């Protein structure tokens, strides 16, 4: 078991004591989602000074703590103060003895748009309050505390495993596993049921136009909780009760059956719900996806069509219909359908956001010393940043890497098409279905790319864009319309843009493959930095070349640790292990997966994070494949030499799996 030490608590120094609390209040007015992460504020005095007035204020963020009442929060604040008071802190290069005078915990209640706050004064005194965006205090009630707790849990669950390699993400945050006690999990599930019909207040995923009762952040967190804990029975009971009030909840029932491997029940659930309401777009979409998974395209296509007709303003049914056309090899229809997809343009993904932008020199980001693993916990972020800055800009700034929400999904659909057809046929389909600005410029030369690539000799021909301006003003093509022409459609601006991005990605990838051939022919080894291998791997991955991508990520890891390469490989190996029945291969994959899982656990621990559903799940599979005893000794043999606490960090997660009976008990 690991325990919290000074090395696991990041802090940001304030300019004036209490400043961050005021800033937090002032941003509340503009919050219209799950809100900021929980926050701890500390007022500290120099321990040896006789004066009791604090001389410094610091703060940091939290997810996953138990915020169900002021007593548990006060206990947490006490333990933090104890850890900091215990011995001098290594503080910006010097050892500094602090005494915490006052500690405040803030947790945003997104249901009622209130910030719940608990303040502990040391040595004694606890106060709590709930403030609105004007700073006014509201009367505390049990329901408001329940809302606070559920909001916290939703934030912790939906942001877990979010890609944190982004340079702008919050690092001064401790992410705790929110499912550490059964009581806490029970309380969340109770809260889910009680607050179910307020779920739309928490907003929805970035791929969905508007939240519904059956699809919102509260529901997302619920499903994740059930999946991690494996308690499908409990989940289905809850949904069963809610279904009697709102039939659209049937959609969640079917989803739970499916992820709980109760396929027959899922099919019946979908069937019954659709009979009751043949226009239930969410259920029809799920049914179409199911038929697609079963490769029954003859069923998937008409059901997806019905789903689109029933819910034409949602992206999801359209994307399933596109997939059906791709699977059927009807690429022209796939492109036309893609072009009709309603995009979500007004929303970003919910991420944990800071309440202010601290200066780098005010950030205290200690290195936890209880768990160390050579080359992982000690990876120098300055070195990585330097390496990153040296990467060629053509690789670094590929815009497809930054696509968001439905645009990223639409891009994925487009790459699925090009993966099956190739680039030139795709352009041909495009020209056939969309109105083109001018005929394909045969033989025009493209100066920006070298020879050797099949993409280089031609520029991307321009399609006529469908937007308000062109529609209402643009090129009127003569008075009478010729018939061929009127069967074509105008390409939406965003889809046209995706073609451009695809062209960029393909050019970089083709160039890489050509280089690789060249090096292989010369029997030389291609040299790239880890950043470059990582980015090249991501291009390959976007284009659906999974094996090639894995090779890049492996090459990337040869030189140094990379969290991105590791998690992408973990995904790849897990998929591959599923596909094979060769036991020596399986054992090989298990070995590799163990290595990646352990390193990622240590990496997360170094960044104050002890919650990753992906890693918990991977660990569960490993234990169930190789056995707990073997796994434990394996870890000790492979990682104990010269390192500390590696086994402890894995053990934390094994205990969580144990709690929910997901692995064999440790004797």
């Amino acid at each position, binding site marked *: 078991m690991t325990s919290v030490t000074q090395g696991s608590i990041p802090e940001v120094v304030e300019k004036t004591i209490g400043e961050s609390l005021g800033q937090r209040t002032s941003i509340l007015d503009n919050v219209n989602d799950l809100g900021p992460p929980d926050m701890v504020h500390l007022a500290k005095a120099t321990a040896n000074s006789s004066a009791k007035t604090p001389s410094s204020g610091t703060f940091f963020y939290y997810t996953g703590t138990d915020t169900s009442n002021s007593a548990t929060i006060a206990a947490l604040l006490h333990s933090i103060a104890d850890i900091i008071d215990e011995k001098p802190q290594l503080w910006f290069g010097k050892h500094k003895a602090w005494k915490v005078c006052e500690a405040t915990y803030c947790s945003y209640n997104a249901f009622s748009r209130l910030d719940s706050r608990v303040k502990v004064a040391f040595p004694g005194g606890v106060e709590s309050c709930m403030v609105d965006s004007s700073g006014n205090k509201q009367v505390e009630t049990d329901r408001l505390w329940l809302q606070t707790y559920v909001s916290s849990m939703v934030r912790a669950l939906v942001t877990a495993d979010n890609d944190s390699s982004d340079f702008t993400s919050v690092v001064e945050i401790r992410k705790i596993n929110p499912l550490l006690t059964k009581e806490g999990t029970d309380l969340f599930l109770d809260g889910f049921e009680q607050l179910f019909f307020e779920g739309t207040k928490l907003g929805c995923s970035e791929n969905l136009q508007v939240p519904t009762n059956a699809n919102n952040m509260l529901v997302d967190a619920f499903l994740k909780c059930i999946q991690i804990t494996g308690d499908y029975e409990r989940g289905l009971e809850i949904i069963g009760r809610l279904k009697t009030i709102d039939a659209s909840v049937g959609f969640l029932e079917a989803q739970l059956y499916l992820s709980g491997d109760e*396929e*027959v029940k899922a*099919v*019946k659930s*979908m*069937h019954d719900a*659709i*009979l009751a309401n*043949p226009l239930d777009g969410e259920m029809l979409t799920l*049914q179409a996806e*199911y*038929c697609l998974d*079963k490769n*029954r395209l003859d*069923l998937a296509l*008409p*059901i997806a069509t*019905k789903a689109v007709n029933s819910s034409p303003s949602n992206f999801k049914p359209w994307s399933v219909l596109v997939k059906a056309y791709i699977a059927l090899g009807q690429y022209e229809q796939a492109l036309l359908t893609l072009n009709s997809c309603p995009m979500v343009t007004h929303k970003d993904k919910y991420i944990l956001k800071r309440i202010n932008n601290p200066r780098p020199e005010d950030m205290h980001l200690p290195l936890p010393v209880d768990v160390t693993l050579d080359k992982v916990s000690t990876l120098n972020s300055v070195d990585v940043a330097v390496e990153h800055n040296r990467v060629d800009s053509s690789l670094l700034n590929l815009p497809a890497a930054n696509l968001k929400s439905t645009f990223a999904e639409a891009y994925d659909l487009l790459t699925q098409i090009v993966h099956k057809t190739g680039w030139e046929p795709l352009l041909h389909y495009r020209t056939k279905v969309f*109105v083109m600005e001018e005929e394909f410029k045969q033989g025009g030369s493209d100066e920006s790319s070298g020879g050797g690539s099949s993409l280089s000799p031609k520029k991307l021909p321009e399609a*006529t864009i*469908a937007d308000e301006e*062109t*529609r*209402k003003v*643009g*090129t*009127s*093509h003569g*008075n*009478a*319309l010729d*018939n061929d*022409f*009127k*069967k*074509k*459609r*105008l390409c939406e601006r965003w889809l046209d843009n995706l073609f451009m991005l695809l062209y960029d990605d393909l050019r970089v990838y083709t160039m890489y493959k050509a280089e690789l051939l060249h090096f292989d022919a010369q029997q030389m080894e291609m040299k790239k930095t880890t950043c470059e291998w990582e980015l090249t791997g991501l291009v390959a991955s976007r284009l659906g070349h999974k094996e090639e991508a894995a090779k890049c990520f492996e090459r990337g890891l040869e030189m140094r640790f990379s969290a991105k390469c590791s998690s992408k490989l973990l995904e790849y190996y897990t998929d591959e292990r599923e596909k094979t*029945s*060769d*036991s020596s291969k399986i054992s090989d994959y298990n070995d590799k997966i163990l290595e990646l899982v352990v390193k990622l656990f240590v990496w997360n621990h170094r960044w104050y994070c002890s919650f990753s559903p992906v890693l918990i799940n991977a660990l569960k599979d490993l234990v169930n494949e190789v056995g707990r005893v073997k796994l434990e000794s394996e870890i000790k043999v492979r990682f104990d030499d010269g390192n500390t606490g590696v086994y402890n960090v894995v053990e934390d997660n094994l205990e969580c799996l144990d709690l929910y009976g997901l692995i064999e008990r440790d004797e």
Partner: protein
Amino acid sequence: MVEVSLTVGKLDASLALLLTKDHHLIEFPTILLPDGISTGSIVRINCDRDYSEEDLENKQFDRLQEEIYDTFGKHEPKSPVLKV
């Protein structure tokens, strides 16, 4: 049944601007317009509910639902045993 008379105000590749007598501007897909139309032409649009097509589609849809249920919803499909 609804019938209206509309003037063609502008023709683009796939969309035409049609105008009602009371200046309602309607974007209309050119694919639904008869051939030979040009700016200034007047078209008559009839819109009618198609009950028989609705019935047909409903029946097809019901059959589809039964097929899905019969295929996947009555017993677990036998999956190949992967033990080695």
